[in-house]
């Protein structure tokens, strides 16, 4: 390897002296740091195999794709699938719903794990702390199918806990799961219940990394616990919060699609149908992979714009950014 490179370098020497220097630097660099690259390798291979290679298949968004003819053999049809999508009111509704659900989740669900982590940090009774943590982590490990079953039962008008309590308070019973206006609160609320605990782990880790000397000196200065939380803990974990926020924005359009699929009904499409469920109904159930790929590509472009914007914003506002 080294030999070929340097041979080539020698041959091209008169014109590309700079290039040769660069190659030499690279060779030296690899010799010195190869362990780090070995450590990186699995991740890079994973990316190439599962994220870059499938991009080849994206071209079916512009083809009349048949799985028998294959990607090569299917004829190009230009932007027809995109025209079909953009001419469909339901697609726009799905885009709208995706954004609304995503932003509401961001507004309501994003702060919860941070608050939870701060609260856990203030618990000093060890057994109580461990128990509380386990209880809030637990729903994360339950399959989404079961979660949907639990939610459907909880909100059932005849046997559901929620309606029973409402009945006791003298309120009228509501068939929540077919009311469009209740779909988003139920979806986002139950998602918070399911994920907030687990997501708080990363903030707890960040809090654990805050230097104890800061607290000690604050205590010497007579700071209250409330002040320490506001003035030390929160600013210290702020970079973590920002990074999590950007990642979250990048995944914004990937609202929990399986979960919506399990919860929604034609009656709640109006508020619950998102891009991914639209793709599922339109594309996968009807085996229109080409159309589904077009919608998926659209989804990805939106996500790219969002994450770029969030990154730029955070670089300007907080000087923390992903890149």
């Amino acid at each position, binding site marked *: 390897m080294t030999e070929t490179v340097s041979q080539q370098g020698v041959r091209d020497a008169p014109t590309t002296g700079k290039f040769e220097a660069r190659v030499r630097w690279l060779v030296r660099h690899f010799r010195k740091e190869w362990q780090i690259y070995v450590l990186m390798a699995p991740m890079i291979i994973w990316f190439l195999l599962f994220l870059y290679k499938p991009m080849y298949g994206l071209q079916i968004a512009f083809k009349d794709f*048949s799985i028998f003819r294959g990607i090569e053999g299917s004829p190009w049809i230009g932007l027809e699938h995109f025209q079909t999508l953009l001419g469909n009111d339901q697609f726009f509704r799905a885009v709208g719903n995706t954004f609304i659900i995503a932003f509401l989740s961001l507004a309501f669900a994003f702060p919860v794990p941070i608050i939870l982590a701060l609260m856990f940090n203030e618990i000093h009774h060890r057994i109580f702390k461990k128990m509380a943590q386990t209880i809030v982590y637990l729903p994360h490990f339950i399959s989404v199918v079961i979660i949907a079953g639990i939610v459907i039962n909880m909100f059932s008008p005849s046997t559901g806990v929620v309606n029973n309590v409402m009945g006791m308070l003298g309120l009228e019973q509501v068939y929540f*799961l*077919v009311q469009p206006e209740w779909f988003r609160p139920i979806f986002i609320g139950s998602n918070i219940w399911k994920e907030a605990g687990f997501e708080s782990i990363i903030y707890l880790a960040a809090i654990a990394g805050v230097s104890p000397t800061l607290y000690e000196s604050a205590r010497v200065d007579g700071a209250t616990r409330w002040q320490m939380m506001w003035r030390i803990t929160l600013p210290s974990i702020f970079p973590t919060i920002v990074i999590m926020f950007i990642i979250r924005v990048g995944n914004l359009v990937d609202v929990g699609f399986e979960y919506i699929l399990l919860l929604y009904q*034609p*009656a709640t*499409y109006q508020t619950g149908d998102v891009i991914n469920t639209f793709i599922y*109904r339109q594309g996968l159930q009807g085996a229109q992979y080409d159309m589904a790929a077009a919608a998926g590509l659209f989804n990805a472009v939106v996500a790219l714009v969002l994450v770029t914007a969030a990154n730029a914003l955070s670089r300007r506002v907080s000087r923390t950014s992903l890149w």
Partner: protein
Amino acid sequence: MRMLRVSLAALMAAGIGLAAPAYAEDEYRVVDDPLTLDIHFHFRDRLVYNNDWPVEKRAAELTGVQLNNVASLATTNSQEAFNLMIVSGDLPDIVAGNRLKDSFNQYGLEGAFVPLNDLIEEHAPNIKAFFDERPQLRSAISAADGNMYFIPYVPDGKYGRAYFIRYDWLDKLGLDVPQNVDEVYEVLTAFRTQDPNGNGKQDEVPYFARQWEELIRLVTLWDARSSGSDTYHDFYVEDDQIRHGYVEESYREGIKNLAQWYAEGLIDAEIFTRGPRSREHLLSNNLGGMTHDWFASTSSYNVSLADTVEGLSFRAFAPPASVEGRRLAEHRRIPVRPDGWAITIANENPVETIKYFDFWFTEMGSRLSNFGVEGVHYDIIDGVPIYKPEILDGSAPVNAQMWEIGAQIPRGFPQDYGYEIQWTNEIALEGIDLYEQGDYLTDIFLGVAFSEDEQRVYDKRWSSIMTYMLEMQQAWILGSRDVEADWDDYLGQLDRMGFNEVVEVMQAAYDRQYQN
């Protein structure tokens, strides 16, 4: 002991085989030298073809053709297994499975499967005779070019779902079995208000259904149609015209009334979310009054819940007369399944393969595929195959036992209803008899095979139209919108979404397919 008896029977069967004259064994022989064909057979999302099934072994003995399964159970989705096999481009000799009609026809036209018309004509006298007698079925499974690309699984028996009601509740309240839509309304109202389960609470659920679409089925009581096939929300055919129930005046009337029934609590308030176990739940808790469901499985609750619910008598009743006096059983079994098997272009022995397919349409082959191996699983009594008692009294249902031996699987063969009747319970048989006498069935729409251009129109339009129709349907039933006020806008919106275009391509495909 049971093992001994089975192996004894096998020995006897083998003995008979040896003693019988040679030509009888050779009658079904397809090849002189044994031939092994690879088959991709992944079906019902959980089973693959098994080279050791008794039925396969017996068929190999008789025909000389042995099948070797290449499908893997690594995936539990049959459609996915099929797609992966097609994508890989590595085609076996035979592909089989359920719900593959559209795939067979589409990829057949693209060149993955061999067109079978000429092969059947020349080499498959039994298949030819079978479809010559049933030209409708041949049309129904043909592709847009008029060719058959697969040999289908042809179910037998006509009756599927029926109206069921609590006869014991009717007795208790002194009511008769409802004969028309008004009486249904009265009965359901009585179920709701007069506490037929006698627990002092108004917790009865007068009409319920495992699939909420069975609520929409009730629009037939106002002379509308909910579906013309065993797929929900499908088109139907009247006088060779393709129509869709959901744009007709009678549907508007039906939905208006159902919305009122729903508001009055005559219909399960949770019908849209209660899910597939609702029948069991509502019957075992003595809550449900009436439903529309399958004969056999629904009747069986009379037996299985006899101890739990005292006096339970949940039996079929004839379809109530509609406003115009029509009694219609809209649901029936589909006369030809979108299941079966096809010959791929990779197959080097298409003639032998079609001869082998033909074997399953002979009396011998059809019996083997319906009942298993003679002397082991059934005996001929008075000329009719009758299951051995150990099969009928087995711990698993008879159909599940048949799957275990390779019978009653979706290969291309004609099913014999005689197989099912032997283990259908009395109450179900009574109900079927009732429906048989009344002759309530109507013809079923068997679907069309689109040309590529037609397919494109359908793909582009239909899924959005369907979404819109169902959204409005549920909103109307739940009372969040008013069908009377929305109707004209609804029709206008469907028009804008290209509803008429879809009907046109359906009609064109239908005319091409069924009228020559």
